[in-house]
Every structure is written in structure tokens, then in C-alpha cells.
């Protein structure tokens, strides 16, 4: 069953960030290798005569992916809201990945500012993708504020630690069975992404783990496969874990023994 993020039905459940790649060409090929249909971008002041931005824009257009602009680096509600409004005009999309930074060392989201900004933006017609924690109560408040997708972190941005709190993420998933939930940030290796999907998460968003890999293109392909693997497994009902062993090879007909009549 396909995943619907607001108006969009997505095939690939991997969302990819566009930052920190060795070169635009490697970004282009990483996007292709990942199979991602949604790519995040930011807004920044022009630098160096605009070449960089122009190259990026045409690269994204050729990739034919949906753009998810972010408000990365915003610390106040006003900054985040203004950035979202500029993004809507520039990218001609109601989508916004809403980040309101609450703390520098962890880049943890500010739950208070996040909910307030989400309320302002949704009432202004935005379709908000809030970057949040695994906190159930904050999640509830974001849904009340009009968000129809949640993006809890796995671990701090760029840390590559994987899922710091699997219990919290499992609880969040159980509590909101019908809301699209995307693990955003902290993923470092494909096994982390597969684990998130096995927990029942609808998708994974990552950037650094691909961009900073020795071979970003191969790593992009790796994450594409891992996300598919995790989703397939979730839908295929994995076996139950057992504490004791259970022979895979049947014992019936084992040689060298007396048969039980």
C-alpha cells in the first residue's frame, strides 16, 4: 500500500538531503542511485555570484524530484515562519520541513517554538513536516496544530548514531498507527534505516550518512535497498524472537538412531 504525504503518493520511502556532497555531480548521481523522489533543500543568501544555487536548481529540476524546503538553522518562530514563506514563493510548494532549533550541541528541536510555528504555518496553508523528537505529547500537539506528517529524530543531526531510543520510537508508532511517521536525522548506516522501517515507520530521511560516506553514490544505493528491505520485512510479518534454539533442519528421519515406532 503506497505512502501518502499530504497530496503526494510516494513510491520510494527514502527522502534524501542535498547537502555536504563532494560535488554537484555526485549529488546528482546519489539521488539517482537512492531512488529518492523527495529531496530537501534550504534557503540561503546568495554567495559567489549565484553559480552554486543555479547549478543546484537545474540539477534538482533534471532529477525530477519533489522539493522539500527546510528551515534549518532557524532558532525563533519568526525566523522559521518567514523562511517558510520565502520558501513557498521560491519553490512554489506548500511543503515545508519545519526545524526550530532549541539547543546547539544536539540541534534538538524546540518543542514550544515548533508547535507555535506549525500552528501559524498550517493555518496559512502550509503542509508542514515537523522535525521533532519521539515525545508523544509534543507529537499530539503538532497534530492538533494541523500537521499531518511527523518526523521524529533517530539521533542528533549528523551524528550517525542510529536510533537512540527504539522504545520511544516504537511507542510513538503504536500511538499513531495512521499518521505518516518519518525517522529524520541521526541515521548512520543502512541497518539503522532498516531497523526504523521494521519498527513500522513509513519512511526515512537522511543526508550526512550518504554525503559523507567514502562513496556517496554506492551508499545512496545501499540506503535505497535497506529502506525497501525494512519495509518489505514489516509487511511480511517477521518471525517471533525466541530465547532458545529451534532446529531449522527437521529431526524426523535423522540417521543412526532407533525410530520411535
Amino acid at each position, binding site marked *: 500500500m503506497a505512502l501518502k504525504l499530504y497530496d503526494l503518493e510516494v513510491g520510494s520511502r527514502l527522502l534524501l*538531503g542535498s547537502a555536504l556532497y563532494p560535488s554537484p555531480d555526485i549529488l546528482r548521481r546519489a539521488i539517482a542511485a537512492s531512488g529518492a523522489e523527495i529531496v530537501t533543500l534550504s534557503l540561503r543568501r546568495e554567495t559567489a555570484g549565484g553559480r552554486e544555487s543555479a547549478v543546484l536548481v537545474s540539477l534538482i529540476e533534471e532529477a525530477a524530484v519533489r522539493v522539500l524546503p527546510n528551515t534549518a538553522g532557524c532558532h525563533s518562530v519568526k525566523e522559521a515562519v518567514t523562511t517558510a514563506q*520565502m520558501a513557498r514563493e521560491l519553490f512554489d510548494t506548500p511543503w515545508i520541513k519545519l526545524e526550530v532549533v532549541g539547543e546547539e550541541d544536539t540541534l534538538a528541536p524546540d518543542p514550544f517554538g515548533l508547535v507555535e510555528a506549525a500552528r501559524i504555518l498550517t493555518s496559512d496553508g502550509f503542509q508542514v513536516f515537523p522535525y521533532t523528537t519521539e515525545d508523544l505529547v509534543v507529537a499530539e500537539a503538532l497534530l492538533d496544530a494541523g500537521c499531518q506528517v511527523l518526523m521524529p529524530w533517530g539521533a542528533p543531526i549528523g551524528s550517525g548514531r542510529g536510533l537512540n531510543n527504539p522504545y520511544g520510537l516504537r511507542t510513538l508508532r503504536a500511538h499513531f498507527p495512521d499518521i505518516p511517521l518519518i525517522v529524520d536525522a541521526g541515521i548512520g548506516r543502512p541497518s539503522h534505516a532498516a531497523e526504523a522501517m521494521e519498527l513500522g515507520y513509513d519512511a526515512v530521511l537522511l543526508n550526512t550518512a550518504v554525503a559523507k560516506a567514502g562513496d556517496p553514490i554506492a551508499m545512496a544505493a545501499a540506503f535505497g535497498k535497506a529502506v525497501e528491505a525494512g519495509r518489505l520485512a514489516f509487511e511480511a510479518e517477521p518471525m517471533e524472537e525466541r530465547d532458545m534454539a529451534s532446529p531449522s533442519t527437521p529431526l524426523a528421519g535423522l540417521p543412526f538412531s532407533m525410530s520411535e515406532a
Partner: protein
Amino acid sequence: MTLTVNGRPLETDAPSLEALLAELGYADRKVATAVNGTFVRATLRAETSLAPGDQIDVVVPMQGG
């Protein structure tokens, strides 16, 4: 008058935000703008006049995670 454009001081006589963008060579570029931290949509740039000390941000798409 002196404005702050993208965080740097600028001496200009541009009467409007539109004029400022033209002066800065953004006329035909796809950018988004804010004055004193408040968004100004493209269609309102012509009628948006500037005052000394105004802080203008002009942004473009960039890589992001």
C-alpha cells in the same frame, strides 16, 4: 541612505525593494526577499519602499538536509 543587505551595510538611493534588487543585479534572478525579518512577496516589491537602517534579506535555493 544606509541599508543592511544580507548582513552587510550598503549605501544606496533605491526608493523601493524592486529598485534595490535591480541595482544589485537580481532583476532577472529567482530570489525571495524579507525586510526586517518579514517576508515580502515578489508582487509587492515595487510598492515596498525602504528606509534608512532597514535590514533586507535576499535568498536563493541552496543545499539542505
